[in-house]
């Protein structure tokens, strides 16, 4: 057998596994000199030809790039909220929200711009979230959906009552249904009605052990205060409610470690606490006493991402056991109001929204929501879901959620979807004619009008 034939035969047998008798059937081909080396030297295409630039080594370039980001720079970029986009078209005929239109049925399915001072206040209380799509439009506007109108009516009715009442509710719903924006709408209404708005923008910040904590001596179960969080919180309250608080003055005697001017305005009083970490919590308590004193306006007390406070926090106690979120003083203050253990003497609304994304497990909260849904449906007795007594549960969370009004937020109706799609089109972000077919398509694709999905389908993932 010639050597070339031998190479072919071995190569064929190894690649196809043919039996020996069939080797002769294969056509004769001279041996191809195969390269047995795969070194970079042979694989390289040689130096670049004249007039052509060599390809830059991107990895090497990246390693030597500039200065590293300054402390806090990346977080600031991540948390940045952009509320205006000069590239988006100005929507003609877009009205600003006014106190008269908010509760009217005729404003349903319409978009309303948020007035400048309200936007500033909402920004101060961190009502806008970086994940929401505000940056795609000329100015911050909100859709007035059916539930927004109901909420506005509830707030209007609360303000009209002769004997003040505290209404408590939890906004629940799937991811992207607009729970946080509903909170924002409630805050916008409250700012326009000259209520005092106190907002805990993200409960996660309180419980994920990223801010300092200190035990309060002589408390059982042990309570903890978070000085730096509360100081920042007071600064937010003072800035957002400056219009109302600057008109109100201190009216009580408070036992504080510093002398305070007897007729100081409440926004300056809150600023005192914002500047001194040791005074932050005592001043918050004094400010709360002032705000709930006679003759003060109603309060809207809100919290987003409720799931994070219906469980143990990430903090550890001295005995190395996790601290329950309700043992953090500010969380407890909110939970007392949400559960009804404390009320707002001048009336108002205590609201919390659950989170759908990055959702920590909180079986108690899930149960409380199902129980509330069952109550709304008129179920009684054993038909109402109960906690499995053999399953270890979080008794404190269960008690705090015992009797709550749950505001279940679902997808938009088709009319509401049309309203927002028309706004997208008028802003130049959706380049299609908004007709019945498009509305039906987008509404269906977004899981029945889930507004977050609608925005993603119409704006972010456009072809």
């Amino acid at each position: 057998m010639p050597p070339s034939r031998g190479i072919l035969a071995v190569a064929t047998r190894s690649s196809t596994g043919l039996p020996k008798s069939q080797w002769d059937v294969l056509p004769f081909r001279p041996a191809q000199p195969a390269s047995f080396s795969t070194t970079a030297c042979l694989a390289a295409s040689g130096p670049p030809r004249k007039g052509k630039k060599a390809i830059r080594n991107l990895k090497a370039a990246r390693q030597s790039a500039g200065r590293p980001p300054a402390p806090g720079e990346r977080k600031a970029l991540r948390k940045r909220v952009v509320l205006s986009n000069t590239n988006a078209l100005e929507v003609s005929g877009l009205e600003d929200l006014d106190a008269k239109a908010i509760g009217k049925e005729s404003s349903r399915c319409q978009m309303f711009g948020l007035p400048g001072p309200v936007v500033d206040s909402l920004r101060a209380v961190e009502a806008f979230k970086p994940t929401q799509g505000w940056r795609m439009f000329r100015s911050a506007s909100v859709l007035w959906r059916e539930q927004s109108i109901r909420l506005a009516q509830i707030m209007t009715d609360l303000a009209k009552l002769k004997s003040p009442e505290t209404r408590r509710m939890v906004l629940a719903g799937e991811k992207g249904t607009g729970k946080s924006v509903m909170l924002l709408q409630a805050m916008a209404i409250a700012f326009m009605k000259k209520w005092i708005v106190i907002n805990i923008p993200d409960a996660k910040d309180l419980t994920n052990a990223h801010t300092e904590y200190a035990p309060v001596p002589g408390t059982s179960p042990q309570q903890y205060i978070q000085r730096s969080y509360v100081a920042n919180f007071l600064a937010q309250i003072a800035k957002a409610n400056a219009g109302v608080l600057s008109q109100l003055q201190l009216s009580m005697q408070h036992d504080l470690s510093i002398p305070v001017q007897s007729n100081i305005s409440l926004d300056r009083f809150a600023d005192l606490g914002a500047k001194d970490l040791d005074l932050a919590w005592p001043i918050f308590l004094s400010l709360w006493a002032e705000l709930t004193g006679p003759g003060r306006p109603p309060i809207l007390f809100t919290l987003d991402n409720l799931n994070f406070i219906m469980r143990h926090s990430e903090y550890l106690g001295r005995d190395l056991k996790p601290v329950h979120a309700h043992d953090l003083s500010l969380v407890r203050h909110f939970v007392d109001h949400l559960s009804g253990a404390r009320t707002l003497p001048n009336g108002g609304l205590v609201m919390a929204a659950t989170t759908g994304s990055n959702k920590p497990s909180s079986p108690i909260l899930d149960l409380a929501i199902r129980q509330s849904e069952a109550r709304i449906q008129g179920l009684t007795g054993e038909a109402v879901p109960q906690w499995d007594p053999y399953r270890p549960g979080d008794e404190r969370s269960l008690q705090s959620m015992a009797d709550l009004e749950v505001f279940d937020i679902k997808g938009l109706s088709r009319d509401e979807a049309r309203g927002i799609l028309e706004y997208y089109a008028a802003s130049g972000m959706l380049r299609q004619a908004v007709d019945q077919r498009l509305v039906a398509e987008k509404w269906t694709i977004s899981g029945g009008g889930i507004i977050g999905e609608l925005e993603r389908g119409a704006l972010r993932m456009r072809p």
Partner: protein
Amino acid sequence: MVFVFGINFPEKKMVKSALQSFYGIGPNVCTTLMARFSIHPTARLAQINAATIDSLNNELSKMTIDNDLRRQLHDRIRRLRDMGSYRGRRHAMGLPVRGQRTRTQTTTAKKLNKIERRG
């Protein structure tokens, strides 16, 4: 600059990493210490008040850590050598102590098994 257990740390240093830089303090001991003084896991030295730093230093001085712990280890190995035990001899020779083979792969033993063991 903040003094913790005789060492000067920059203020932006994380408490967790400052504590774990001492021989004898690992993740577990560090977590226990920080929980005892109510220091959150992402705290930096600048955020802790002077009183807490003092009590932390006081607590650290009561523990057997760093040079004390190293000395304790050396003493134990030295005791084994002085009494002429097999383990003591193997330590002195830089060979495996617990019956491992020596034909190949004694790098770790050569590196660590000494009278003045590094840790």
